[in-house]
């Protein structure tokens, strides 16, 4: 494989085809009848034999990629620094391979929820905030709009639940999101949605759904871009 790539790059970039073309012109200049037969044979060779070669050289780069099915060991890459953020092993796999996702629980300020959600009465000053009155749910439209207990477990506040009533851990919320957003989840598993954390190599660690999206208002808000671009032609 590597030998092939090397030849693509370093040979002077006028391959067989061009050499043959110059040959062809020399023959035309001395166009006498016996030579014409040679030309004819040459044309036949060009038409029959060359297309294979041309095809091979034109699409070799992508073919080479598609033909590579040998597993690549990402952990064998030296100098990779491990991800420092807290992660958990995902409950799903991609192509039979385990991966990790960013933990969500340690991002929630007042986890565990059962600290407040007990049978005991709670007296507080910042009632509005502590009763979650600051949360605006903007998830789902019209009749499809979600309410708290569509995702939060109605009895055990330390967990979420899906539509079948199964408890879902906060760290594995992708199992909950994926029941509606199954296309996004499929892409997320493969890597077309979301992204890896810090490294392309090493152990696969990817962002959780709620690492980027606010689950109560998942669409990104409008804002000014981080910078601007100068005119193209200066």
């Amino acid at each position, binding site marked *: 494989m*590597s030998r092939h*790539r*090397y030849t*693509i*790059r370093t040979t002077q*970039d006028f391959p067989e085809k061009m050499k043959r073309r110059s040959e062809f012109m020399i023959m035309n200049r001395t166009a006498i009848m016996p030579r014409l037969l040679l030309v004819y044979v040459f044309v036949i060779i060009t038409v029959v034999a060359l297309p294979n070669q041309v095809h091979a050289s*034109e699409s070799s*780069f*992508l073919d080479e*990629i598609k033909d*590579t*099915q*040998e*597993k*690549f060991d*990402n952990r064998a*890459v*030296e*100098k*990779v*620094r491990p991800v420092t953020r807290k992660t958990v092993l995902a409950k799903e796999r*991609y*192509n039979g*391979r385990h991966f990790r996702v960013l933990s969500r629980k340690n991002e929630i300020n007042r986890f565990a929820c059962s600290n407040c959600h007990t049978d005991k009465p709670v007296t507080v000053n910042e009632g509005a905030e502590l009763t979650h009155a600051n949360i605006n749910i903007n998830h789902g439209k019209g009749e499809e709009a979600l309410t708290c207990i569509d995702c939060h477990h109605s009895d055990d506040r330390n967990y979420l639940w899906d539509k079948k009533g199964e408890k879902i851990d906060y760290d594995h919320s992708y199992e909950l999101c994926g029941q509606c957003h199954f*296309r996004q989840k499929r*892409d997320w598993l*493969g*890597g*077309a*949605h*979301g*992204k*890896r954390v*810090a*490294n*392309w*190599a*090493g152990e696969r660690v990817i*962002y959780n759904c709620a690492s*980027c999206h606010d689950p109560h208002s998942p669409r*990104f808000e*409008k*804002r*000014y*871009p*981080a*910078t*601007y*671009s*100068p*005119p*193209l032609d*200066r």
Partner: protein
Amino acid sequence: MKSDKPSGRKGCSCTITSAKSDRRSFLKGLSIAAAAGSAALATGCIPDVNAATSEEMKLRWQEFFKDNYRLMTQEEKDATIARLERLAKLQDDLDIQMSNDPPIDRVLYGYAFNITRCEGFMECVSACVKENNLDRKTNTQYIRIFEMEPGNLDPSTGDGQYFHKVPVENKFYMGTQCFHCENAPCTKACPIKATWTEPDGIVVVDYDWCIGCRYCQAACPYYGRRFNWGKPEIPKEEVTTKQHYLGNRIRPKGKMEKCTFCIQRTRTGQLPACVEACPTGSRVFGNLLDPDSEIRFVLKHKKVFRMKEELGTEPKFWFFID
């Protein structure tokens, strides 16, 4: 970075044009310049005899006669990065760590950009400028984001200079940069082979071998290359000190530069700065020769296209739709 050092250090051309020079120092500078010849003056590389230390002169002398990076042995590569680290300390008082990490075996980098998901926040652009030590004075940027009308897929029809709240309804955003062509026209245009494709697919420039003719810039069909008209000006506290010889080290004046997929990061397994900065996950980067990689998933399962594919340049940068 520039303001706190004596004005005479950079070279005669600077001495002449500096505001505080009186008649005597002007004539002195002029005589040195005349002795050295006008060609050397144009490059601005004659040191002021008073300012440059003998150590700096020695290092610059050795740097001047070094080889093309591809012809260097590993010892010579190590020696040159040691010299460049020391020179950065002497000239600009910067403590940098420069590497010459080689390509990783069985790795070919590829990149994909999701035009459905990008919302034009341009976090990637500012992260790139910061990571790659790009010139703040001329606002050099490797990445451009275009605000596009639906139905168009050619960035030249888009607005590359928007500055308003994004995303705008019924517009989409498309990012361009160096596409690291497998059949790169820029490397063929270079008359002195100062730019080439590395075995891991990254198109790089040897900044010390480049003569600044800009043929490669003319040859690139994607506007992927940038030219340093002056020495990059970066606030000292913003300089990225983790550098690579072929990557984000501060370019000398009059050299070509371009996106290197953040070679200083990717060769240690990190993602490029633009991918790490993207808040929407529109940017996918990975090893094309790994069948389980994210980029291979995109190529296999998504509708992808490349810019100006008909030119046969084989970019390793795909745009895709969700």
